[in-house]
């Protein structure tokens, strides 16, 4: 019989920490190496700054960093949520419609081949420096992985469960909510997670190209001013933003599909 009841316990946490001591040691070692190599190799501060200085100067500029995190965060969240809200129903529709599968689906696959980021300058020139073009870029980056995984998800119900559902005489809605939707969720989350990882990339690059606020804007400006310390601080907050989004999606996954093997293994 398989083992079960894997609830997080204190002993389990301790074990995991002990197992990860090598990683922690490596992590600390990496930053120590960084800190002291800047001194030892006499690297000018406008090229690379030691982590201690990044923390110090970043903290001094914290209000601006937090403001910009909010700006970029807004772009990321709106773009991501829009992508989920539009891509999921579209994926579902394509999965169940032969006509859509022959028309929109190949079109989407073709567009998926185009690097969406390449559209960023166009959208900025069409729509200006504001929030909208960034939201659209984030949306584009997130939309395709979600739609493609949703199509895959809703098309992969096992033969047995399909026959079972039909043998009960249940209607399409009951079959959808009781069997098809829960069975499709794990594969949908593959798309949600992939999109979450890429959302901040889209926002940052859109801001590089044309904006007057946000973390991407900040990183570009301070780098131009030869302040790599502040650029790293900006990168840190951008990373934090991405981790928060990914964390939220992972939390939703744990709540919605605690039964799935990928969740149980952790």
């Amino acid at each position: 019989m398989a083992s079960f009841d894997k609830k997080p316990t204190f002993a389990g946490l301790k074990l995991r920490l002990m197992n990860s001591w090598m990683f922690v040691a490596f992590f600390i070692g990496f930053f120590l190496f960084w800190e002291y190599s800047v001194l030892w190799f006499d690297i000018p501060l406008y090229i690379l700054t030691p982590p201690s200085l990044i923390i110090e100067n970043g903290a001094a500029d914290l209000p601006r960093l937090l403001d910009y995190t909010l700006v970029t965060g807004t772009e990321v969240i709106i773009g991501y949520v829009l992508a989920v809200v539009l891509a999921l129903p579209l994926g579902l529709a394509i999965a169940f419609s032969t006509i859509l599968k022959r028309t929109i689906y190949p079109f989407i696959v073709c567009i998926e081949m185009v690097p969406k980021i390449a559209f960023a300058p166009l959208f900025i020139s069409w729509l200006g420096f504001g929030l909208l073009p960034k939201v659209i870029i984030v949306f584009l980056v997130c939309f395709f992985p979600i739609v493609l995984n949703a199509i895959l998800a809703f098309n992969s119900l096992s033969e047995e469960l399909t026959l079972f559902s039909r043998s009960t005489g249940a209607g399409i809605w009951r079959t959808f909510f009781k069997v098809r939707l829960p069975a499709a969720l794990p594969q949908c989350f593959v798309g949600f997670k992939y999109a979450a990882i890429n959302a901040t990339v889209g926002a940052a690059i859109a801001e590089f190209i044309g904006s007057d606020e946000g973390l991407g804007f900040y990183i570009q400006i301070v780098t131009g001013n030869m302040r790599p310390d502040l650029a790293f601080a900006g990168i840190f907050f951008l990373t934090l933003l991405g981790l928060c989004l990914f964390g939220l999606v992972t939390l939703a996954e744990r709540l919605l599909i605690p039964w799935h093997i990928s969740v149980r293994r952790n």
Partner: protein
Amino acid sequence: MSNQIKFSGVKKVFGRGPDAVHAFGPVDMVVEDGEFVSLLGPSGCGKSTLMLMTAGLLDVTEGTVQIGDRTVNGPQTDIGIMFQDNTLVPWRTVRGNIELQLEMRGISVASKRAEIDAILASVHLEDFADRHPYELSGGMQQRAAFCQAMIHAPNTMLLDEPLGKLDAMTRERIRSDLQSLWMEQRPTVLFVTHSIEEAIQLSSKVAVITPRPGRIERVIDIDLPYPRDYEVKRSPEFSAYVHETQEIFRGYGVI
């Protein structure tokens, strides 16, 4: 109401034109009310095809299938059906999976609590009702799947190699449970298997199916007393049936 299953000239062809594959039939056979009939044949002979056509989950190309006085022309909802790969869903517990069958049919779960407890007890799963399928062994999963397939009390059971993926010992055990259950309730059973011994131990009749395209070569009446326990299986009569069946398949070069 009669649950006799009658196959008249049933034939299945997949595809059309030059690429068409003649999978099964034509076949004529009558499974009487309360009989346990095995469809015994090599892989790919179309046993499962016949079963799906009986359930109305696959269209017949020619001929008719009748259950009682109804002609099958769409999914039959008053039968219990089991596959080699079970239809337990991982997001529900064992009890939840049994309830799924009721919910899908729009039957009130609350009104069937006692039945669910009873059927779980009959397969010794009462202590595992709140476990998820992935917490159970393969044998326990098939027992749970059996409860799921039978909770709506069908009089006809279609079992498509339900024991196919189990180890030999578990298989023996569940076989004898299945036999007790059939002896008690006497549903009409169509049982797909490629195990000669299994077919002879369980069935009142064994329909021997030829390699593709599958046809019913012979229907052997198994005239042995129930319950068919180890004593019966050791008897020369049992061996004679096994031998007779093996000879048919040797004639085809299958074994």
